[in-house]
């Protein structure tokens, strides 16, 4: 496997590699910066790589891969204890030995559970990416995620290895973000369904000329897929299921939620195998890697399958995601998957987005609370009554929201997912 520097050196140096609101940098400039970092000896001072400043991050990745023994990627919302632990493991940064690959150490997002550290190599991180540089060089990928998390790193590496420019907005304001992407000719975006719903609500969203739309990190619902399809009719829409632990995943391109049941026999591409556990969670195995080696705190079964913790059901030849098995809300001993309630509320044509969570109750442990972002000019009280009525029709009594709150916005985590805790 080539190193990141070798891959970039094989592509034209004059191409723009990275665009931020402050300016643009060519591939040659990035390679030169990385080279001087190695010559100065600074590259070996620390394995830590932060995504706070994208050019520094890219320079360090290029300098360290294939040169230093480890790269420790540090997301913005770093868990202090996790990194104290990681730094102990990588206490001394060394030159890499012959025949070895640099270890890329990355944290899982820990949406509901504790984040874990997993070790990858450039090879495992890029094995499901597109390598065609002829097509790649025509594309501009938006970096919406934290580049030190798995999903963001995939975008960074996709742009690097296929010769695309990386567009890096530096704003949390959704209108400004979308306007920046339009201005810079963005063609490709990878984001969570929650983030897509936000972007779809931006005034100028229809002006984006997208060719690739990727969704991941959360359950992808048919309504969001449908809205994307009607707004961006020329785009290829893919929803991916990837896990930081496994390093690769699989993609679904038929525009429907969940994935075809045939994937349980054979996943296209053959890089992963899937099973459903007796507890109804999805099990996944990377067929090209021995997952049991070198990964701390990751539990595999005898056959090397990892339990993803995602609850699924088989429904009419389709495997449908229900939500995180440990993310359920306990209502007097009965379990509610917030995603199931969200799916029912999201079907309303007046609803832009929704978040469901458990709120502590002195009576039953918890009650279900829903936050709803309505379309503009919708009568809030009417909408609430309609949603209560829909829930009464569709959900068992204990699953129905006790309270529906009308809000302007759904708060997302650093990983771009809807916050699950209150």
């Amino acid at each position: 496997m080539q190193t990141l520097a070798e891959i970039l050196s094989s592509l034209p140096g004059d191409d723009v590699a990275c665009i931020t609101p402050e300016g643009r940098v060519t591939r040659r400039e990035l390679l030169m910066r990385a080279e001087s970092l190695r010559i100065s000896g600074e590259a070996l001072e620390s394995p830590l790589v932060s995504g706070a400043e994208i050019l520094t991050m890219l320079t360090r990745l290029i300098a360290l891969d294939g040169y230093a023994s480890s790269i420790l990627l540090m997301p913005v919302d770093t868990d202090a204890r996790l990194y104290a632990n990681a730094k102990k493991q990588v206490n001394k940064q060394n030159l890499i030995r012959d025949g070895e690959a640099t270890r890329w150490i990355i944290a899982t997002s820990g949406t509901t559970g504790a984040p874990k550290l997993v070790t990858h190599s450039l090879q495992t991180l890029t094995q499901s990416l597109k390598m065609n540089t002829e097509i790649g060089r025509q594309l501009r990928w938006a970096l919406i995620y934290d580049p030190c998390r798995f999903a963001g790193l995939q975008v960074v590496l996709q742009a690097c290895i296929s010769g695309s420019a990386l567009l890096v907005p530096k704003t949390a304001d959704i209108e400004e973000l979308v306007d920046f992407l339009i201005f810079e000719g963005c063609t490709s975006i990878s984001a969570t369904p929650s983030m897509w719903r936000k972007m779809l609500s931006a005034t100028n969203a229809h002006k984006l000329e997208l060719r690739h739309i990727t969704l991941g990190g959360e359950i992808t619902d048919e309504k969001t897929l449908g809205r994307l399809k009607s707004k961006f009719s020329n785009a290829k829409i893919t929803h991916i299921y990837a896990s930081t632990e496994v390093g690769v995943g699989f993609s679904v391109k038929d525009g429907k939620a969940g994935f075809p049941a045939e994937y349980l026999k054979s996943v296209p591409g053959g890089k992963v195998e899937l099973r459903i556990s007796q507890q109804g969670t999805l099990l996944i195995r990377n067929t090209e890697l021995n997952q049991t080696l070198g990964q701390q705190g990751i539990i595999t079964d005898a056959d090397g399958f990892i339990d993803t913790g995602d609850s699924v059901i088989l429904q009419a030849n389709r495997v449908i995601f229900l939500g995180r098995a440990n993310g359920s809300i306990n209502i007097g001993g009965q379990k509610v998957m917030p995603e199931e309630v969200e799916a029912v509320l999201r079907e309303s044509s007046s609803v832009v987005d929704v978040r469901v969570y458990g709120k502590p109750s002195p009576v039953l442990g918890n009650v279900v609370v829903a936050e709803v972002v309505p379309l503009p000019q919708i009568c809030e009280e009417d909408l609430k009554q309609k949603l209560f009525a829909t829930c009464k029709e569709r959900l068992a009594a204990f699953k129905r929201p006790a309270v529906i709150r009308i809000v302007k916005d759904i708060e997302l985590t650093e990983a771009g997912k809807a916050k699950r805790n209150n």
Partner: protein
Amino acid sequence: MAIRKIIIDTLRRVASTNEATLIEPLTDDTVLLQSGLDSLGFAILVAQLEENLKFDPFAMTDQPVYPRTLGEFIAFYEQMAAHN
């Protein structure tokens, strides 16, 4: 609006949206657990009252409080409203 009226209006609304039949007439002596509303209904009632009144009296006391009758329930809310 008086707390009493808000509580009784909310109670009736929760009962109607949760297919519960209240045992009429509702008086201060009505025992909550025999009013027709089950514990899920009460959890919803308390959550909705917090939305309307902007306070949860159960979260404001260190001592566990278990109002037995509707009168005690209303008195508890009125008492804690004074502290709020």
